[in-house]
């Protein structure tokens, strides 16, 4: 699938600020499942970019705006070609997870991190799932994936990014990064290396992953990956219960959200920002024949019933 992505973040400050320093992680990674065709970042007021690849392999664009300003707008535009990953039916037995070399390689994806700090209840739940679902890694992971989807209900605004994952699990509500963190924490608690993935989802609805049209306006998305001994990393999207496929565009991964935040930074001054962030994804190789008029499809997208997330957005 050929997707054009435009990710725009606008900070409007109620008083002048200055010396803003920011890092953006918004560039689709090139890997065996997707290929980056073009990428461009623009900042207003204009700023010089320092681009580099971080420890996790994610492209970072760093920029600063020293002079006084009251608005800051960052736009990342990417073109990417995606494929479905090869299907994983069965995986190796659970014992293979204990192999010393495997654990040594994945040490950082086996430990707790600030957003994946599981408690005893969570570890117990993960153990029960593992015991009840046979002895191979892939089926246990699939079970955890399903469990997380059942455990949480999708509710934008119900959680904060700093909230402990144990709280979120207890409350039973969250958004995509909560689903991803919960899944990662459960996997790690029973010794399965897992990592958090930041990316884009070509869908008008994170919760269902449905594709209805060729243009969607959404937010960035998050899912997770697990290391299967002998097979590599298996990506799963617990928010909508789907396997990761062509409509998923990966930016990068890390131990948790803190390693791949789409945008983070600091500024100085009395102003507080009103933030408006949006992702626009356009499918460039439409599934419908080209004779299908472009206009109605656009209209349909706009007129589609608003998700709660979009309503939330409207209110801000």
């Amino acid at each position, binding site marked *: 699938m050929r997707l054009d992505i435009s990710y725009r973040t606008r900070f409007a400050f109620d008083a002048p600020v200055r010396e803003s320093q920011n890092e953006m992680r918004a560039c689709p990674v090139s890997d065996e499942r997707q290929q980056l065709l073009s990428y461009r970042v623009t900042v207003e007021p204009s700023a010089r970019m320092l681009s580099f690849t*971080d420890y996790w392999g994610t492209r970072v664009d760093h920029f*600063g705006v020293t002079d006084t300003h009251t608005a800051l707008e960052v736009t990342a535009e990417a073109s990417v070609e995606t494929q479905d990953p090869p299907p994983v039916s069965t995986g190796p037995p659970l014992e293979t997870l204990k192999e010393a070399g495997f654990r*040594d390689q994945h040490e950082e994806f086996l430990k707790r991190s600030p957003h994946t700090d599981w408690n005893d209840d969570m570890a117990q739940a993960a153990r029960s799932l593992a015991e009840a679902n046979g002895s191979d890694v892939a089926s246990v992971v699939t079970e955890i994936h399903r469990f997380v989807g059942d455990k949480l209900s999708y509710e934008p605004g119900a959680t904060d990014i700093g909230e402990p994952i144990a709280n979120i699990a207890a409350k039973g509500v969250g958004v995509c990064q909560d689903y991803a963190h919960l899944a990662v924490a459960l996997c790690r608690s029973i010794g399965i290396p897992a990592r958090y993935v930041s990316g884009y989802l070509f869908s008008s609805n994170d919760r269902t992953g449905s594709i209805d049209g060729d243009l969607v306006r959404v937010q960035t998305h998050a899912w997770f990956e697990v290391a299967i001994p002998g097979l590599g990393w298996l990506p799963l999207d617990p928010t909508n219960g789907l396997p990761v496929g062509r409509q998923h565009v990966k930016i990068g991964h890390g131990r948790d959200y803190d390693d791949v935040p789409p945008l983070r930074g600091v500024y*100085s001054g009395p102003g507080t920002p009103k933030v408006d962030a949006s992702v626009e994804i356009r499918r460039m190789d439409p599934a419908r024949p080209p004779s299908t008029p472009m206009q109605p499809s656009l209209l349909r997208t706009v007129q589609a019933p608003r998700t709660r997330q979009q309503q939330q957005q409207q209110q801000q």
Partner: protein
Amino acid sequence: MAAMSAAPGFFDEAVDEDGRTRDHYRPVQEWFDRLTLEQVKGLEEQRNESFRRQGITFTVYGGDEGTERTWPMDLFPRVIDAEEWAMLERGLIQRVTALNRFLDDIYAGEQAIVHDGIVPRRLITSCTGFEREAMNVAVPMGARCLVAGIDLVRDGDGAYRVLEDNLRNPSGISYVIENRAAMTKLLPAAFSDLAVRSVDHYGRSLLRALRSIAPPACGDDPTVAVLTPGIFNSAYFEHAFLARSMGVELVEGRDLVVDDHVVAMRTTRGLERVDVIYRRIDDAFLDPVVFNPQSTLGVPGLMAAARAGTVSIANSVGNGVGDDKAVYAYVPDMIRYYLGEETIIPNADTYLLWEEDQRAEVLERIDQLVVKPVAESGGYGIVIGPKATDAELAEARQKILDDPRNWIAQEVVNLSRLPAWAGDHFAPRHIDLRPFVLSGEQVEVIPGGLTRVALREGSLIVNSSQGGGSKDTWVLGDSGQLDQAAQS
């Protein structure tokens, strides 16, 4: 004034097994023997007054608040003869060279030492001091441990051993220099009798090392600044001391700004570019963009500037992966791997507690061992088995079981002893030594270092934060000749 007798189990620095004063201590011992009680007390008084007047103090934390005390320097100096020092110097240069190579391999290289199976990957990834944000940030000449403080002790046989490496922000050099300045005033006669190697060129050597790591593009006259957390930091005295002795600006984070990935100082004439920053702020507070976002001590955008190569930061960010106490156990392997040499100054015998068999042995013998947290410095969190209560040992056992990677255990080292003033007489007290090693175009050791002394009888804890004092450390020049370094 003082009589020393050899005690079994401890190495006495100044006297041999038969109770005779060792040759290199003879002039010092004779000099102190001639002093009366009143004279010693007079010198003590003079020293306190001088330190107080100059504000040479340190802050002790604990209890309700930090309290400021004048620096406790014991009058009886530590003496190291030329031959012994030559060995130590070689050993320290060897060790720091290997550590620089290791850190550069991890952060800017191929991690060859991991790929070649010398150290396990998880040893690196599990270090709290491993800063992924510093990945691929180059440091000119790989001089990552620009200032290293290597803690040495002497075991029961008098053999030197490395107890720990301090590669992040080792402090104490200002006291080395102030101790010497005080001793020169208090005992001028002693210095005219002996060729004691000078330490007061430190500021120049440090400045030279810092300038040598300046970004190549900044020209012949790089601007250096010392970055301090501010006047409330316990080591502020040292930060100010170092800035003064180098003749460079002492700045706080708020004095610096990053503009287009270039660091500049805010001055009365506008922004002035800074090329090298000797920072005395911990990694976590250095840049709120990538580290602790709440930190107001640091400089937003500093890491990006370092990555862009417009500024050099010393010591390098992420050096905690080099002085983690589990990594310490591998330093002899690093020396072999990078330098093809055998270790000149060996480690203390160390157990890695994440290795099951070693852990089992340690848990069994915990009352005979010293247990240390891997990422702390300053003596915090240490449990000394033979001196600990049953409750303390039980707690230590539990902590090890909870997080074995966070702890190491070592055999108790019977620190060597040297006379120290005990109120009305000189009595043997345990000491260690922290020499300071500078890395720039070459690796250089400042003669001597900070000798710390446990002022309480029988105590093995030398940290000034825990009742320790210090001694001036005299390295004797070759065959009584004045040292060239002193004049250079």
